[in-house]
């Protein structure tokens, strides 16, 4: 597993929730390989933020995208070569703020991608501003008197938008989390995991999540049940909250075609253009 790491210096705060996510993802890659998905086909991406450093720490191919644009980047990769499995690490500000339109539309079109959203409820790398998921009243440098906005609920929002695999995970429950990553990557369609990630320098939520999360015993069977579970606030359920089989975007678009591998030769293209330009 060592070779899944790189020489890049780790610059997360000691105790950061991202370490658990990194280690879980590496283990998930090994499990996926055991299931026949080789690592050369697992393409990673990330946005910009503390979560994004995952990209440098993983010895896997991929694209370190712009802030909020990684959801678009991986859809482009998937469309060009549908044989690839694409996964992006996306912070909550990245995924639900700057990149919200891309996230929602990816769910709407059931793009065959996986978003692992590191939800730490804060813009940590830019020193602690409130995010679209921070609770009302969060005091950061841009909201010194406390944020006056209610947060989004990412799971109910994406359920409404058309997501076909939704889960919540807490990295302290490592095996449970690893299994969720494997399922999300294997899922054919839009899969999304909200990862409850403590950011020790700004919000040390380790104890809170330990006391307030519980593993879902029964996976919701219907959209309505899923919506109820997604909206629960007494305890934060972790596990698969919604799963549905639905045709994926690229197959609806071009069936089993592969734009990159089956690209038309120069001769064929010119022949067709010649035909188009011939005067009838």
């Amino acid at each position, binding site marked *: 597993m060592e070779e899944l790491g*790189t*020489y*890049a210096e780790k610059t997360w705060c000691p105790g950061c929730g991202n370490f658990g996510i990194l280690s879980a993802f590496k283990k998930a890659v090994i499990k996926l390989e055991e299931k026949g998905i*080789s690592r*050369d*086909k697992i*393409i990673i*991406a990330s946005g*910009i933020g503390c979560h994004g*450093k995952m*990209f*440098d720490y993983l*010895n*896997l*191919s*991929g*694209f*370190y*995208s*712009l802030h909020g*644009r990684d959801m*678009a*980047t*991986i*859809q*482009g*990769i*998937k*469309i*060009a*070569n549908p*044989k*690839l499995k694409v996964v992006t690490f996306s912070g909550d500000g990245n995924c639900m703020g700057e990149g919200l*339109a*891309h996230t*929602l*539309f990816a769910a709407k079109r059931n793009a065959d991608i996986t978003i692992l959203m590191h939800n730490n409820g804060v813009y940590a790398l830019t020193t602690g501003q409130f995010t679209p998921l921070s609770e009302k009243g969060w005091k950061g440098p841009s909201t010194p008197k406390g944020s006056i906005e209610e947060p989004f609920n990412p799971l109910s929002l994406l359920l409404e938008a058309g997501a076909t695999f939704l889960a919540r995970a807490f990295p302290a429950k490592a095996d449970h989390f690893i299994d969720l990553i494997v399922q999300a990557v294997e899922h054919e369609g839009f899969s999304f995991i909200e990862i409850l990630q403590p950011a020790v320098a700004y919000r040390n939520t380790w104890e809170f999540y330990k006391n307030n999360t519980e593993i879902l015993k029964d996976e919701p069977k219907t959209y309505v049940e899923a919506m109820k579970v997604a909206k629960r606030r007494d305890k934060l359920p972790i596990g698969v909250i919604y799963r549905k089989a639905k045709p994926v975007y690229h197959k609806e*678009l*071009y069936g089993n*075609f592969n*734009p*990159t591998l*089956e*690209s*038309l030769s*120069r001769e064929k*293209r*010119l022949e*067709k*253009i*010649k035909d*188009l*330009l*011939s*005067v009838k």
Partner: protein
Amino acid sequence: MVNDAFTFLVGGKAGEGAKKTGSVAAQFFTSKGLHVFQYVDYMSLIRGGHNFSVVSTSNRWISNHYMKANLIVNLDKRSYDTHKNHLAENGIMVYNSDVEGDMEGVGVPLTSVAKNYPKPRLMLGVGGVSILAAAIGFTKEKMNVIIGREYPSGKEENISYATKIYDIVYPEIGNKFQLKEGDKLRPIISGNQAISLGAIAAGLDVYFGYPMTPASSILHFMAAQSDNYGLTVIHPENEIAVINMAIGSTFAGAKTMVGSSGGGFALMEEGFSLAGMAEAPILCALSMRSGPATGVPTYTEQGDLNFALNAGHGEFLRIVASPSTIEEAYYLTAEMLELVWRFQTPGIILTEKHLSESEMTVDINLDKTSWAEPKMHSGGEFKRYFNTEDGISPLLFPPSKEVIKWTSYEHDELGITTENADAINLMHNKRAKKNKAIIEYLKTKNTINIFGEKGPLIFTYGSTTMSVLEALKCGDIEARVIQPRFLSPFPVWELDGYKKESVISIELSKAGQFSNLLKDKTGIVSETLLNRYDGRPFDPIELSDQIKEVL
């Protein structure tokens, strides 16, 4: 003045089919082997307003329409009022005699005859076609073959209506204009079709676009042709998604292109800069309309030149080229796709509404089409940003046992983020080597067009070149015209010999962006700037008068 062209103008409300009538008129002329230029003037609305189409034709190469028309067909009163001063000497003005108002010329009951059919309003344009057919002495049989092909929906009714109108007008205007026969049957295509075909021919796999006039018809043409060429065509949520998806697709090895006009391209700038850093080969078709902001959506301008040259934050190689004609748009788009892949950097094919949406007969030699083929990694250890002599790192596409990392951060050769001063220098220098490499490469290519051998010197670019060439022709002016095909890098090496000459610059920009660029890059100062910025392209006759005035 030598005007050896015949011009047909048809105008009416949006929805009455004037645009389509223009296209069918063009078919009449091309079927005689003539050269054709068709201009469409329409408002940003779906119904009502005033739309018109101008089709100029000749038995020699013709590169712009003429606003003075030999035959004008007005489907409504507003058209008549707009165009009553556009009639050429000995021309014929036709008006719809069923509409109220004081009009002179040949009255034709277009509306009342149409009322005998199920969709009368949509038929008026067909009437315009038959008036033209009668006036140029087309037989009814020949006319009806073309009408049947061009108006397949309600074919029988259209043919019947066209025949009636033909019989009504023939006694008065039949065979009034005898057009010469041309030398060769040629296809007629729009500028956006030429751009699309050039990209497809050079290897395009995926096209991303969000609708914006005048670039939308690239998206539409690509979508319509997707099955034929194995193209994947996607219209995502916005232009930011457009360019980021496109960059993702290039990472996987697909040849991609995006397209928009100024406002949409403004949204793509962030991604354009990403392409500079990640060294993603992205081609953008940027079709200019009147700006700034929403501007005048369906009219032409060349106000985004500086914007294109400086697109995206940060320092990186941007390739910008602008075609003079619809034919050149085909070749140059293919060349640009080849160039962005050769140099792994973003590029812009810069054009205008006047080229995008006009149609012109073309003679394309397909064998001369470029083909995009990147330098590939040939085995051994792979580093995405390997620092080579010319700055171009060989490519490898996933899946691969080698790790392939593209990134928006400054990075080392492997693609891992760096903040190290030496590493930053190394990568800046590596990317900058491509600036030199491309100049050496372009020195072996055709980067400027020179028209004419003697006489005063005119500089222009883009589709304004077509207007200038047509103005020289009709004004019988002997001049030399230089049109840089490439605007970045600017082909200064071709222009050393012209520094001491007195120069006229012609462009569609209030600020004279092109003449300023010429001066900045080469020291060539334009003594005269002939510019227009009212959304309309130059009319050849007016422009030739302006040129004569300054000579």
